[in-house]
């Protein structure tokens, strides 16, 4: 099999595109990212590796705006992300120019996925080593959406999803605990999911909340700490409640 991973345009005998699979490996090594869709709020959260003391943490924003009503978080190679994000931002404006309408979330996801696919079928290039989580509100219907793309260029819509490190455990947690939420509940669900794999604390998590009216808002460290404290309190209360009935019998 070693012969089939040099030029990505070549299939292996059993139908694999190894470079794409290696790109997925790169994604699996990237930091955890989670997205949760509520009825009127969508939340993106990413794991933040502790910043070096001398580094300006504001310059390493991991959740970015593609347009007023669309945001993106990703896991994987951050330099590739920068290129992809720039192209997506240009496409958002180009779409506004040619049809005088903002893009829908599905359109820009399709564009990003198409771009990622193009790089799996061209000569001399390697695939983008990142998976993205794209959130936004439809400019007309106002419906919230969450989409995920991966290095192979496939995309699909999700109610909640995660990518990056330990994404399987986060996804399991979400499958068990997902329900339709709105407002602050959605934020809490996202943070709870992320806390499954990340050390708790505001300085290890970056959260951004998108609403239809206010667009994207990055939460401050203190806000995140406060919510984490709430979650811990709830967890403790649940633990206590579990123990209490046992005593009664």
């Amino acid at each position, binding site marked *: 099999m070693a012969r089939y991973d040099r030029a990505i345009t070549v299939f292996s005998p059993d139908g694999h595109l190894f470079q794409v699979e290696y790109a997925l490996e790169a994604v699996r090594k990237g930091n955890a990212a989670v997205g949760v869709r509520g009825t009127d709020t969508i939340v993106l959260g990413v794991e933040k590796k502790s910043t070096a003391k001398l580094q300006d943490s504001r310059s390493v924003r991991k959740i970015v705006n593609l347009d007023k009503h669309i945001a993106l978080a990703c896991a994987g190679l951050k330099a590739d992300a920068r290129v992809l994000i720039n192209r997506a931002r240009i496409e958002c404006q180009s779409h506004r120019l*040619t049809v005088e*309408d903002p893009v829908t979330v599905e359109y820009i996801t399709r564009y990003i996925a198409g771009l990622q696919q193009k790089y799996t079928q061209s000569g001399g290039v390697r695939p983008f080593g990142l998976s993205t989580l794209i959130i936004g509100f439809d400019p*007309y219907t106002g419906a919230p959406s969450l989409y995920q793309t991966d290095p192979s260029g496939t995309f699909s819509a999700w109610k909640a999803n995660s990518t990056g490190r330990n994404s399987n455990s986060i996804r399991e947690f979400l499958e068990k605990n997902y329900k339709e939420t709105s407002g602050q509940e959605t934020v809490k669900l996202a943070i709870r999911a992320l806390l499954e794999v990340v050390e708790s604390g505001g300085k290890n998590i970056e959260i951004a909340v998108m609403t239809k009216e206010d667009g994207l808002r990055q939460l401050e460290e203190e806000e995140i700490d406060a919510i984490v404290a709430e979650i811990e309190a709830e967890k403790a209360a649940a633990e206590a409640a579990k123990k209490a009935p046992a005593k009664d019998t």
Partner: protein
Amino acid sequence: MPNPCKQTPNTKEDAPSHFPSSGCSQEIPFHNSSSFFSHRKMKLDTSSLESSALTSRGIGIGAEIADAPAFQVPEVADFDGFQKAAVQMVKPAKGTTTLAFIFKEGVMVAADSRASMGGYISSQSVKKIIEINPYLLGTMAGGAADCQFWHRNLGIKCRLHELANKRRISVTGASKLLANILYSYRGMGLSVGTMIAGWDETGPGLYYVDSEGGRLKGTRFSVGSGSPYAYGVLDSGYSYDMSVEEAAELARRAIYHATFRDGASGGVASVYHVGPEGWKKLSGDDVGELHYKYYPVVPNTVEQEMVEV
């Protein structure tokens, strides 16, 4: 002795761009001042036609604009004059009357059906309202072929947009697509003065798009040589709260009056209505018959009548 530089007076198109380089010092009065430069090839500014660097690698900023075709231009002494003459020859004087207006119940679109070539009426039955798709209409003024082709092309693009995005394109988007295409062919002799009328999620929409690349959003437009007459009737009779029948009658009358006064308009006055369900053709009346409907002949009173004894 033969004068190597003597040329018979000719039109601008025939003027060769290269002269014998030496010995041509005599005055050649029938060429205009640009003949001074005609011994070398005309340097034309084709920067707007070239693909910009941005389109390499597939970044499509206004992809239509960057895809403007490049073709060889004729080498004449006075290219600008030649181009003007060519455009004048190609561009018919938009001998037609079309109009469209938005009112409470949607958009009313009406047009005549005469095609003229100078003083010759080549057809009385031209379809000037083009059905782009079941909810979008376009009107034809200018070059018939240009309008027909580019409207069909727009129909294709609208359908592709629907398939890709699972929703209909807005009137804004459709008119913008057409305007971008026409802009990229600007100066190449296309003659299109069209109105795009339709109904989309935001309600009724009406845009005027022309081959100069202009695009205007509005509630009342009339295009063509008969438009001044149509505007007179349309503007004086317009009210937003008309019913469909009233609006149709207003449109019909406006077209009729334009055909009465303008020689290049005539034939049949077609009236279409665009509502939330799409467009529907309401009527197509011969303007001659409309004339007698609006102004019936009053028989003269006979003072004395001869009767058979």
